[in-house]
């Protein structure tokens, strides 16, 4: 208790990550172990788990009870929804999207992975790479999660054999690389015993890599912004009515990608009007430069018409606007998505009317095969969709920008979120080089 110093409580970085694993791969145990060994489970929580476990006649505390928060989940002993967990080490703060492993909850993994910088895919060392593993890898590739960790669990049940681990790691890495996953880190673990989760394992001296926690603590969380297209979706126009700021007119938003500098020439989409950045306010303080994901307010030299839903971009790097979007989607609602469906599309801060023009294919995650013209997409389906919007939108490819290349479809009747959409090609595999002259700027 006395070991905590104020230096250790300095500001650190934040890593958002998600877990994926089949029902019996030991995901809850891994999550429980990470929380427990990083001292994020507190006495009263543990006591509550012990109390409930004992009342059910279980001898050892069931760590899954730490993460199953809803009555129905505890009754059925399954996880039915994404839950968010929080823990910290002196080096980093973590937000864990704890997603259920059941195949029918693809939408939950998509939800968790949409904000994750890293995903941990669990494998049972006895079973090796199975269908479910390939599904998880495909989803990580589809959502373009920058870092993937393969945790080969239950090493204690295969005699801590290096060759078992090596064969699984090789098979998985080959498959993931083919999908375009940029980085795979394979770690042999036993979540139950605690090998290589937080503490290095004494049982696997052949392994020289990091533990799961060490890797989580050191994986880079920011990207090289020089190659990013700068994008600011305008959320709200700030116009103080008071006498102190009679002429202040600021465009508030969270920078979705890249960076903006005072003096930059910018264009406002979809109108196409141009101006220059005369100032940037970072929550009330003027700054010279601001970058993703800061929430800022831009001030422009010219008094032009800008409102919520517009996108401010560098004039030299503006996406074309379009009313025809082709995307890969994951359908998340119980009611199906059909051709002719009238929907609302939310992209950045803009919501427009749209219509589903075509569903060219449905993807089977197991073998990545495409089924042409399925007619509809039902809950948890992934497919290609063509959408016509009522107004032109400046969309990026999801491969270029997870923020400005993504959208959701909303049911205009009951407001339900129907579908998660990613603009452009499905997988991050290298694409054939295209002739620039054939490129109309958006249709990949």
């Amino acid at each position, binding site marked *: *208790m*006395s070991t*905590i110093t104020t230096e*250790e*409580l300095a*500001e650190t*970085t*934040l890593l958002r990550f998600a877990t994926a694993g089949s029902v019996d791969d030991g995901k809850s145990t891994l999550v429980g172990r990470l929380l427990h060994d990083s001292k994020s489970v*507190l*006495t*009263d*929580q543990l006591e509550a788990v012990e109390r409930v476990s004992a009342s059910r006649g279980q001898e050892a505390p069931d760590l899954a009870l730490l*993460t199953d*928060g*809803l009555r*129905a989940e*505890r009754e059925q002993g399954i996880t*039915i*929804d*994404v*839950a*968010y967990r*929080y823990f*910290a080490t002196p080096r980093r*703060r973590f*937000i864990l999207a704890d997603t259920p492993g059941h195949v029918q909850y693809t939408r939950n993994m*998509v939800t968790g992975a949409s904000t994750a910088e890293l995903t941990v895919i669990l494998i049972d060392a006895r079973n090796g790479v199975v269908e479910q593993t390939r599904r998880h890898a495909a989803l990580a590739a589809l959502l373009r999660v920058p870092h993937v960790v393969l945790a080969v669990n239950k090493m204690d049940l295969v005699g801590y054999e290096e060759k078992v681990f090596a064969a699984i790691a090789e098979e998985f890495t080959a498959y993931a690389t083919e999908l375009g996953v940029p980085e795979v880190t394979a770690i042999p673990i036993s979540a139950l015993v605690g090998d290589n989760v937080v503490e290095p394992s004494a049982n696997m001296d052949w392994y020289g890599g990091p533990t799961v926690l060490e890797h989580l603590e050191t994986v*880079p969380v*920011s990207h090289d912004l020089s190659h990013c297209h700068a994008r600011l979706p305008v*959320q709200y126009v*700030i116009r103080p009515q008071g006498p102190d*700021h009679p002429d*202040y007119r600021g465009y*508030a938003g*969270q920078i979705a990608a890249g*960076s903006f500098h005072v003096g930059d020439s910018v264009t406002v989409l979809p109108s196409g009007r141009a101006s220059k950045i005369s100032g940037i306010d*970072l*929550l*009330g*303080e003027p700054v*010279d*430069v601001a970058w*993703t*994901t*800061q*929430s800022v*307010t831009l001030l422009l030299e010219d008094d032009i018409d800008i409102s919520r839903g517009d996108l401010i971009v560098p004039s030299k790097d503006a996406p074309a606007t379009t009313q025809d979007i082709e995307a890969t989607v994951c359908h*998340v609602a119980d009611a199906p998505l059909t051709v002719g469906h009238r929907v*609302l599309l*939310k992209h950045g*801060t803009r919501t427009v009317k749209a219509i589903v023009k075509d569903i060219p294919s449905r993807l089977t995650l197991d073998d990545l095969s495409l089924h042409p013209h399925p007619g509809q997409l039902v809950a948890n389906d992934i497919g290609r969709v063509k959408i016509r919007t009522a107004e032109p939108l400046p969309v990026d490819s999801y491969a270029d920008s*997870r*923020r400005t290349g993504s*959208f*959701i479809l909303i049911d205009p009747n*009951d*407001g*339900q*979120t129907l579908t*998660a959409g990613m603009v452009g090609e499905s997988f991050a595999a290298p694409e054939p080089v295209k002739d620039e002259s054939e490129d109309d700027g958006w249709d990949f």
Partner: protein
Amino acid sequence: MTTVATVSEETGSPYALSHLDALESEAVHIFREVAGEFERPVILFSGGKDSIVMLHLALKAFRPASVPFSLLHVDTGHNFPEVLDYRDRTVEKHGLRLHVASVQDYIDRGVLKERPDGTRNPLQTLPLTEKIQAEKFDAVFGGGRRDEEKARAKERVFSLRDEFSQWDPRRQRPELWNLYNGRHAPGEHVRVFPLSNWTELDVWQYIAREGIELPQIYYAHEREVFSRSGMWLTAGEWGGPKDGETVEKRLVRYRTVGDMSCTGAVDSDADTIEKVIVEIAASRLTERGATRADDKMSEAAMEDRKREGYF
């Protein structure tokens, strides 16, 4: 003009935000989304540290303009006087409008009945939900954090409530990227939780960094308390102590602020923010486990109350 483009030794990159900056930016984004999409938003403001941090973030989000939201306090009638005083000073300082939903008023009118245990926390739901309906609030900001309790760990940032303010965990909308869906029918409203991803320690670190003033009861002070169910409760007109409970003077502070009848103090000599942060970081008890009697009632106490419309 200042610049913040400093390379942090800790993060190793000029473009990685610190965890507090990342959480702040996300919360501000949420406030601005609500301002852009809703007609009549309101911030639940209790004078507790989470709602104080919420208001601070809202003030930063719209600078140099003023906050485009009013405040709503559910007054249990058993509030700490220091907290009510803080509430009123804050409202005045920022020129805000305060709505009050009064539990005492409902009891006086005979609509609600005092519980045998004297706890008024569960009685807040009806005054809150009726006020939301009467004022036609369509977005209600709450300071709830997912780290507080495991039913809250399942909560969305934008959480749709029906016309009875009910939460149905099975009918929640998936939340993808930062594309929050605020659609709702007339009579429905959305509860919005900008501090969803903050932990208790984040809140305290942020309070320290921003120099935010809090009600004094958050810091160690001598107070007349008595012990009930393993918690130190403040003696007062709300009905404690009962026979057999003896009052003593102890050095204590509060980790949460709520109704006096069910919010316990903890023994502490942390009388500065630095000491509070070290104490929280070393504590082996959660905030609610240490100080909230009502959450100990059953395994699903929070889930059940949330379903009914509690914050």
